[in-house]
């Protein structure tokens, strides 16, 4: 299935430019599994997406937990706790 991934703020900066991507992922079944799968891509990914970091997730632009199921065409985002207002 095809998944697009977006990163924001501190997570985006830690990974460097051009890391937003779209790819075929037939392994991870949930948002949490996708986070672990991405974290294994490089030490940089591992540090940015580590479970030591406060990372929040959204699926199709709605906040979600790690057990959210992935589906074809999903847009998954990883970012730190929000600080607007």
């Amino acid at each position: 299935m095809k998944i697009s991934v977006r990163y924001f703020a501190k997570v985006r900066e830690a990974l460097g430019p051009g890391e937003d991507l779209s790819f075929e992922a037939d392994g991870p079944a949930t948002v949490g599994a996708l986070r672990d799968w991405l974290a294994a891509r490089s030490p940089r990914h591992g540090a940015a997406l580590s479970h030591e970091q406060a990372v929040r997730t959204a699926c199709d632009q709605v906040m979600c937990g790690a057990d959210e199921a992935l589906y074809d065409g999903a847009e998954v985002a990883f970012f730190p706790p929000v600080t607007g207002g």
Partner: protein
Amino acid sequence: MAVQEADFDLGNEVAALREGDTGIGAVASFVGTVREWALDGAAAAPTSGLVLEHYPGMTERSIEAMVDEGIRRFGLRGVRVIHRVGPLALGDQIVLVAVSAPHRRAAFQGCEFLMDWLKTQAPFWKKEVSAQGAQWVDAREQDDAALARWGEVPGAVPNAAGGPDAEGQGQGSKA
């Protein structure tokens, strides 16, 4: 509702909010501004300003959901929300929430509820800029506590208080 780089005028926004609605008996508004962080020891060097990042698309959806909930919960007659993004200088306006209602209690409460939601649920991130460089602002657990005062809020998830690991956050959050 708008997410924009441009500044806004409180008077114009309130006038637009009130226009043509004689059922309004109360208007409450909140304007957030860029503060000097070094004054309370939060930064080592004087702040020159902020840069605000957001998640285009999700930001708008999130604010629309909170406005719907505010109207449902407090019987608000009208709501205007403006959040600025991009580079902002000290003293600049960041955010406006203005609401109208038949009576003052609903207006005060609705305005505060919407700000408590926005601070913890809308995907914006502040980066503080000083002579020593730029640094992302940390989320505060007391902002989660502020939203929690309003009881069960549909779709709301713990933000800072969710802990370092996102596991288990947002149980049932898509309900």
